[in-house]
Structure formats: structure tokens, C-alpha cells
């Protein structure tokens, strides 16, 4: 069955355990024209809150590709509560697009009604865990579906944190029933910035909850005094160390839908397709290992 004959099932069915790419406005036309050989596409939910051209493109593209809606603005960790108007805009977009996946971040972006335009790290405390779980619950209730929650990159930790981030994320999944979007690049970035062991992080996540993996590039910033911080800017190719960590993640979780993200200095579509093809090779290998293990 060709992709073209199954528009509805493609639009409503699950995302395959294959490699996809993040879709940004400059690639809308190229995706329609070229039908790149990627298994699925993910967009930022907030970019489709309005009507007109962006939504028309997405509705055309979703006839041929499963779509994932990835939110960046819900601020699941805000102590002052969810912005219910924002959640309602997410709900309307989800109802219109009927995506295969819906995801958000384990972070916060809003304080005193002001949007701070970044994914800020939560203090890893029981209080913050309670807030995050309440807001994931509320979101899943309003959207009437399970969401995936992604681990963010971070450049600072709070002195009063008491729970390792990997345990915090696993607890959110356990308490709310949400899935986990495991961003392998973010684990690598945060592990370098905070001197964590990325393998410890992966080992703490419940394999059954992993619904998606993200891959992306990041940059390295030299600070005064010689310290280096890695910055998650999605502006380059995935680095070898992150490919290695990805292979380790697939070894733990099995083949999981995998997405290559690219936001700044967006290259031609072919570069993203090429990165997705590299992920596809590792997914194939993970499938073979699974089959070998079953046969044994």
C-alpha cells in the first residue's frame, strides 16, 4: 500500500518506529513538492494556532505523513497554574490536525503572567513534582489523550533540588501515565553541563514509557574562567557522541519513533533527510537485534 492511498490512517494512526524530521515553515513547499523519504513529521504546535497559509500547508502535508504536534509554550511547571487559554488553543489545534503524537516539555516558561521565551529548568523538589504532575493530568484531561513529556536541556541547577532529574521524569510518567519524549541530545548537553552520567540517566527511564526520541545539534560556549557550557540551539548536525548515546538508548528502549530537530541556521531539506537516514540505519539495527534476541 502506498503512502498516498492511506491518508486517513496515516493521519490518525500511530507514528511508526521510524525516523522523521522537524518541519519548519521554510520547508513547507519543499515537503509538498519533493515528498522526502522520511516516515513522519513533527511541528511546533504554537506555529499553527492561526489559520491561513501555515495551517493550509499542514493540512495538505498531513494527508501523506503522520504528524506530531510538539508544544513549546504550555509551561507545565509554572507554579501559578496553566494558561488555560493557551491549553484551549492547543486543544483546538489537536482537534483540527488529529496528530499521531502530542508532546510538551518538563520545564516552565511563565512567571507572573510573563512569557520568558525559553524552557527553564524546574527545581527538582517534591513541590515542583506535584505541580508538574497536576498540569500533565490537566492537559491529558483537556486533550483527552496521553501526551509525551520531554526532558529539557539546562544551563543551571537549583541548590535546593533533592531529586535527580531522571527520577523526577520517571515519577511524572509513573504518576500521570504520560509517555516520555527522550531527547538524547538534551541528556548529553545537560550531562556535560552538570557532570552527570548520561548512561545513568537512560537507565532510570522506564522503557515502556518511551514514546519518542529527539536528536539535534548543539553548540559549545566558552565562558570566562575556562568553563564550557553546551547550548541546545538545534543549529547543526548531531555530533558523534550523541549518535553513540542514541545507539545506547535504542539498546535499552528498542526501536522508538525518532525525530531529527533543526531550528536555527536551517539547512536545505536534504540535510535533514540525510540526518534522518542515519537514524534509520540505527533503528534497523535495533530491530535486527530485537529479532535476534527473540529467535534466541
Amino acid at each position, binding site marked *: 500500500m502506498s503512502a498516498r492511498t492511506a491518508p486517513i490512517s496515516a493521519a490518525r494512526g500511530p507514528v511508526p518506529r521510524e525516523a522523521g524530521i522537524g518541519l519548519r515553515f521554510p520547508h513547507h513547499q519543499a515537503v509538498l513538492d519533493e515528498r522526502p523519504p522520511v516516515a513522519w513529521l513533527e511541528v511546533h504546535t504554537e*506555529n499553527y*494556532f*492561526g489559520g491561513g497559509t501555515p495551517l493550509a500547508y499542514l493540512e495538505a502535508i498531513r494527508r501523506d505523513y503522520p504528524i506530531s504536534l510538539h508544544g513549546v509554550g504550555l509551561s507545565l511547571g509554572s507554579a501559578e497554574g496553566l494558561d488555560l487559554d493557551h491549553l484551549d488553543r492547543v486543544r483546538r489545534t489537536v482537534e483540527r490536525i488529529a496528530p499521531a503524537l502530542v508532546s510538551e516539555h518538563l520545564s516552565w516558561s511563565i512567571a507572573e503572567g*510573563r*512569557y520568558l521565551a525559553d524552557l527553564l529548568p524546574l527545581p527538582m523538589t517534591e513541590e515542583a513534582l506535584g505541580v508538574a504532575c497536576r498540569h500533565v493530568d490537566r492537559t491529558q484531561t483537556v486533550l483527552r489523550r496521553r501526551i509525551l513529556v520531554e526532558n529539557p536541556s539546562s544551563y*543551571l541547577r*537549583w541548590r535546593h533540588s533533592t531529586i535527580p532529574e531522571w527520577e523526577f521524569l520517571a515519577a511524572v510518567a509513573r504518576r500521570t501515565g504520560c509517555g516520555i519524549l527522550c531527547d538524547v541530545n538534551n541528556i548529553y548537553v545537560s550531562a556535560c553541563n552538570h557532570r552527570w552520567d548520561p548512561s545513568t540517566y537512560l537507565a532510570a527511564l522506564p522503557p515502556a514509557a518511551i514514546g519518542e526520541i529527539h536528536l539535534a545539534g548543539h553548540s559549545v560556549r566558552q*565562558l570566562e*574562567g575556562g568553563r564550557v557550557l553546551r547550548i541546545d540551539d538545534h543549529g547543526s548536525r548531531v555530533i558523534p557522541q550523541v549518535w553513540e548515546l542514541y545507539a545506547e538508548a535504542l539498546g535499552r528502549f528498542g526501536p522508538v519513533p525518532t525525530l531529527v530537530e533543526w531550528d536555527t541556521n536551517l539547512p536545505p531539506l536534504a540535510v535533514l533527510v540525510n540526518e534522518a537516514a542515519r537514524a534509520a540505519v540505527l533503528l534497523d539495527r535495533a530491530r535486527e537485534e530485537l529479532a535476534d534476541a527473540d529467535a534466541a
Partner: protein
Amino acid sequence: MPTLLEVQRAVGRSIIASDDAPAARYVFADGVPPRARLGIYRNNFVSNVTTALRLSYPAIHRLVGAEFFEGAAHIFISAEPPRRADLDAYGEGFPEFLAGFAPARALPYLASVARLEWAVNRALHAPDMEPLDLSRLAAIAAAEHGHVAFLPHPSVSLVAADHPVDEVWRAVLAEDDHAMGAINLDAGPVRLLVERRATGVEVTRLEAPAWRLAAALCASRALQTAIDAAPDVDAAALLTEHLAAGRLIGFELVDCPITSGVHA
């Protein structure tokens, strides 16, 4: 131990007002000064919101240049930080900010170009809405027609400016220096209709009376009031055109001070 709310309010002050001290107390230094760690988030905030503003105001960005734009944007963002997480909706106050921004005084038309760009931005991001079902209008008795108050399509804006800002906007975005040089900035005021059509956003000049009628209709004035505001146009023909173009998407019946007699 600080509460989550205390931490988040302190970080908000650090990011928006560059007041790092309250948040820095809570940050684990680990070899990097807390201010440097907080500074990364502040830089990301300014950079992300400035980019959003530049995408909404591309002609302003080209008119004043990147350095001036970023400087003005930084001051504006600190004074009016975004209140919603979808940044497409951010920047409505930027034209008024530019109108009062002393370093921009040499360009008296700048704020008006910005008002036009905000209308274009609104048109780009407005939700899709069905046009008014004309059979609903046909069901209204003729005696009630004057009481009809229309609801405009959210993509429609009416912009008035003292300078030919539509010409400036087009020439700047086309990077057409020749057209830019040919604009007579003292050519007098313009009255503009901005809307999203199937082919994209369009900016159309209207004569002043036709613009007044359109503005009254889109402000949901009663039809009779709108007609009285523009006595020198063929209101029926213009209304038909607005309806056919899908610029009006609903209506309700309201009291009309001119014909109802109630308010006489």
C-alpha cells in the same frame, strides 16, 4: 527552602529586569558564576522575542537597520514583555512605542508603517472563518436592516495614516530603492484595508468615504449608523462587495439611535 513560586518570580525579574540577585541566591554555582548561568536564559529570551518582533515587523527592521531595531526592541521588550506563549501574537504595542521613541523622530512615518505591519501580521495569523451565510441576512425583515451590526473577519483591519505608508511598506520589502526614492512622503493621508485573501495578505487603498463605511461596519456599528457616517457613497454596493469578499462573518441586531427613535 524557596517555594516554586518564589524561584520563578525571581527568575522572571532576572530575565526581564536584569535583576539577578534574588534568583542567583538559589542557583548552584558549580564552577560558573550564577549570574553567567542566568545570563544565558536572559540572552535566549531577548534573542527569541526580538526574532519574533522582527518577523512581525520586517519593514521596520529594514527601514532602521538591524542594530537600531535590536536596540529599540530590547527597550520595548523590557517595558512590555510577552504575556502569551505564542509569539505570533506579540508586539501589538510596538507601533505606539515607536511613536514615542525619541531616536526614531527623524522618521515621522515609522510608527504608521508599524501600524500597517501589525495589521498585516494580524491578517497572516487570524483564524480561518466561514463568511456570513447570506440566507441568514435575507431572513431579516427590511424594517430591521438598519439594526444589523456585523462581525468582521478577524483578518480584516482598517488603517489610516498621514503618509503613503503602503508605498513605503511595499518598496522596503521589495528592497526597491528606486521605488523608495520616488515616494512623495508629503502626498497626504492614506486610508487602507488590510485583509487575508486566498492568495495572501492584501493591502488596498480606499477613498475616505468608503473607508469610513468599512471602518464603521468592522467596528460593529449598526448598519444605519454606518451608512450615516458615509453619506456620499453607494453603501448598498459597497456592502455587497464586503459580503461577497467574506469580510463579514456574522451579525446581530442592535438598537440603532438614528432610526429606532428610542434614543431620540
